[in-house]
């Protein structure tokens, strides 16, 4: 479904990604790990066209993803969450989630301002769907709360809901279990597995929580200094000496 080839991104003197290549199969859950500053988030930013690649190709469902304009990524079926949260602070949780469904609506300035029946129907449909996802992620109670002032863990869930309501085929999660205690991580891992079935979505997850990665991912890619240093089933990567040296340390 996703094929990354020789992807390189530079910022001034820093090479954040250096010829990275891997592929993701449909339905698979891929873990992306690596030391801080290895280029994981940068890779996500490339896939969602926030950054331009200096070299390399990305094919998504056979299309050249790097030729897709940033705002069309969502419609192409890719959604993501952000490492440091990318919510809309002055909007309610529900509205935040509804923005995730933006590309699925068709109302324009004129039709919306006139409140045509078509627009109302579409609005009602998306609202129902958003409420469904909020419910699914146990966010109903905070649906009308503005997206500031909620605990970090909750906000991470709001981001997930926002991504899901866009009905993505490929979901990119950047450190989703940050700030959760281990029981919550376990719960979240369960939710994620269920969602994967329910929404039939392929996922790439960046995470430093190795328990979570080992427990949920089918395959793991490890980056270091912008280069891929390992790829394979979690248990294998975990034992990889270079991964241990660069990333996991001894307790791995």
């Amino acid at each position: 479904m996703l094929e990354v080839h020789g992807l390189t991104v530079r910022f001034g003197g820093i090479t954040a990604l250096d010829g990275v290549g891997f592929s993701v199969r449909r339905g698979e859950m891929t873990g992306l790990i690596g030391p801080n500053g290895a280029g994981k988030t940068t890779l996500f930013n490339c896939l969602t066209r926030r950054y331009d690649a200096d070299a390399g190709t990305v094919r998504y469902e056979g299309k050249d993803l790097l030729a897709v304009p940033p705002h069309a990524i969502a419609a192409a079926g890719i959604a993501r969450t952000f490492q440091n949260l990318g919510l809309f602070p002055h909007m309610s949780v529900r509205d935040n989630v509804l923005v995730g469904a933006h590309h699925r609506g068709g109302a324009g300035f004129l039709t919306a301002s006139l409140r045509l029946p078509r627009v109302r129907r579409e609005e009602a449909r998306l609202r129902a769907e958003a409420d469904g996802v909020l419910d699914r992620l146990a966010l109903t109670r905070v649906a009308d709360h503005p997206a500031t002032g909620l605990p970090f863990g909750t906000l991470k869930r709001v981001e997930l809901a926002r991504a899901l309501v866009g009905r993505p085929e490929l979901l990119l999660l950047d450190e989703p279990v940050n700030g959760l205690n281990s029981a919550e991580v376990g719960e979240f891992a369960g939710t994620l597995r269920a969602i994967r079935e329910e929404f039939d979505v392929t996922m790439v997850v960046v995470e430093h929580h190795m328990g979570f990665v080992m427990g949920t991912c089918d395959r793991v890619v490890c980056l270091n200094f912008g280069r891929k240093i390992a790829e394979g089933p979690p248990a294998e990567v975990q034992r990889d000496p270079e991964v241990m040296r660069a990333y996991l340390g001894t307790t791995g």
Partner: protein
Amino acid sequence: MVGFLQQVVEGLGAGAIYASLALALVLIYQFTGIVNFAQGELAMFSAYIAWQFTAAGLPFWPALVLTLAVSFAGGMLIERVVIRPVEGAPELTVVIVTVGLFIFVNAAAGWIWSFLIKDFPNPFPGGALEAGGLSVGYSTLGVMAVVAVVMGLLYLLFQRTKVGLGMRAVAANPTSARLVGIRVGWTLALGWGLAATVGAVSGVLVAPLLFLEPNMMGGVLIYAFAAATLGGFDSPGGAVVGGLVVGVAETLAGAYVDVIGSDLKVGVPLIIILCILLLRPQGLFGRAAVERA
């Protein structure tokens, strides 16, 4: 050719005036992140204070020193009394407060000193330096020199001093600034005080050239905005270069492009700014904000 060069020189002279106020704008923007609409009026008010001192019989230079001191204190006071209550409010709220301040100061000056033009002493000699057919007024040279000095001092302040670092930290993230022990309130007040002082320098430079009355700085403010926008709102050097570019462009366009004429010459800086900003949205010397998802 000499005529052309002379126009350029005159444009630089006008530009230096715009730059002088732009420096104060940039200063405030640097550490509060707002544009201060009242900056020009505060400069005008400082000029009146200087006038009041000289009218009371003080010689120019002591009057100037006193004025700078009063302006500094006044700037700090304004921050404490007027800006402080809206600290932390949305940015536009603060901007509108400065609009209110603009209206207030302008009206107050008229009320106190009337709208009659005041006789303001010129600190620089009247003549002009003649060289190669060009003539540059001593006051123009004086203004340029002062602006250059102020710019240099501001640069040192921002980049080389702890106070400057603290100010930039406050602008970047007031909450964190507090956490590392910066007295945010006082830093902001200090910033306003400094900006008012720089503004006072501008007002005193401008008053003998444009003639002192309450509306003196209105037009200058507009051009100072243009200068700061062009140069980048976070760079003192940019403000000065921006001011000079605006001054020269406007002068030349008014003089040589007939369709523009003197009535539409205000449009020239506009077009330059648009063109430059489209290429560099952060202004000529401004730093682009780093954005990470």
